[in-house]
């Protein structure tokens, strides 16, 4: 199925939750409502014509200007088609719904996004830091991140 058909399918089913799309990109992407990612993901996985059973990658992005986002790279091993989903949020209200109940692999990826970008993943079963120490302050992959001077009394910059 082409990206345009996938987009039309989603648009027909979810309407307003599909915010925008760029279908002529190198890898076409669709922006969705950050509060409805779970039901959209469930539809993408279970609809027989779509069957996105595999999530290749889930990445957090800081787009500068106070905008954060998550990018979902989806793939169907049955139909061999791909699509990129995006969900955006602001730094003031960084909330995006979890999809880890749909794809198990999203669990750790979402923890990483929380760890690195401070995006709070709503309904995540186990939202803890994953790569950094549990008492680390700040979210390092944000573009405006400043390295702290001390961590537990140890000097950080080397």
């Amino acid at each position, binding site marked *: 199925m082409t990206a345009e058909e996938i987009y039309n399918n989603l648009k027909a089913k979810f309407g307003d939750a599909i915010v925008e799309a760029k279908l002529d990109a190198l890898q076409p992407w669709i922006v969705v409502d950050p509060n409805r990612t779970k039901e959209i993901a469930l539809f993408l996985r279970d609809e027989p014509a779509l069957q996105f059973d595999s999530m290749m990658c889930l990445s957090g992005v800081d787009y500068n200007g106070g905008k954060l986002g998550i990018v979902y*790279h989806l793939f169907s091993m049955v139909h061999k088609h791909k699509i990129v989903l995006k969900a955006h949020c602001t730094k003031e209200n960084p909330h995006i719904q979890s999809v880890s109940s749909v794809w198990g692999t999203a669990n750790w990826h979402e923890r990483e996004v929380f760890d690195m970008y401070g995006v709070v993943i709503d309904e995540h079963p186990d939202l803890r830091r994953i790569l950094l120490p549990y008492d680390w302050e700040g979210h390092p*992959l944000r573009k405006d991140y400043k390295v702290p001077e001390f961590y537990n009394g140890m000097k950080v910059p080397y």
Partner: protein
Amino acid sequence: MIETKTLPTQYVTQPGAPKTSSGQTVRTDEMIINMGPQHPSTHGVLRLEIVVDGEIIIDVIPHIGYLHRCFEKHAEHMANYQQVIPYCDRLDYCAAINEEHSYVLAVERLLKIEVPERVEYIRVIMAELQRIASHLIAVGTFGIDAGAFTPFLYAFHDRELILSLFEMTCGARLLYNYFWIGGLSHDIPPQFAGKAKEFCTYFKPRIKEFNDLLTFNEIFVKRTANVGVLPKDVAINYACSGPMLRGSGVNWDLRRDDPYSVYHKIEWEPKIGKGEMGTVGDVWDRHIVRMREMEESVKIIEQALAALPEGNVQAAIPKRIRPDAGEVYVRTETPRGELGFYLISDGTGTPFRLKCRAPAFVNLSVLPEISRGAMIADLVLIAGSTDIVLGQVDR
């Protein structure tokens, strides 16, 4: 370090539990055992928090990040795109060439450049040699996990020969910086093809020898069959890849199903686990998939050496690499599975965002699922069969 956890009362005394000599009822309790971060069987600095009931594992909680070195943040602060390549080497230090391959493909896809055919063939040869070297580490150390030391020495002896081939080519034995954007750092030396053919001829009977020594050894089979079974649907849902996925009987290999370089011109086939010794997707299946993949890699190397065209090893690329604003996700099949790079360019000379989708990270996330209900002694084998490299897990 062993500590006990307070539990709901229904677990504390069971009806009919035996009494101690002083007349107290024997309590049964869950226990938390800490394994790692410094432990020979965790293959690096991985910490596993294991909840056990007697010898049965109830839950495993991996704690990672001990080797985190900010790869993604570093990549955003490099002076140019080329400088990221040596960092990619250090993601998975057992299979550095495959990491480079994925990254340079991502940048080339974004730049929309084609590399000369000779480059593609040399890349395939190097990637497959590296795959053999990496699988030799995997099966060798897996043998140690199961208590067999000799196969490890066999594996490392043969790996040494591959490292010598790399040393002859680019001077480095572990972290190569050999694949460059648009080509290679330099051509292979004239004697390389002969030596590589020699290695292939030598290595084929060695695989059989290794199989006789370890894979079909009755003790090893009894130890690994029916252990740590990863069902097909769980493997796909957790996006497992590489030998983990193929061991579960899914016929899926990116070299064939999402082809890159010149794999589509070469005849070979992905090997899958069939449950010959036990259940499909058990630890033994993942082991045999790695063994058989090495045979396939030898086939690929031989064909690529025979078809190696003459020509340049560097495409014409701009001196200062500035891809147009855009984004791309490129994935390749590394020894551990699908390695993806999600690269966003904003039109400047450094990546705006580089996300590394590490196969070891994803494969490790399924460990709690496949360990529940197993015996604690088998956890070492299950963790070993996922073939994680902590450099890649923690990035």
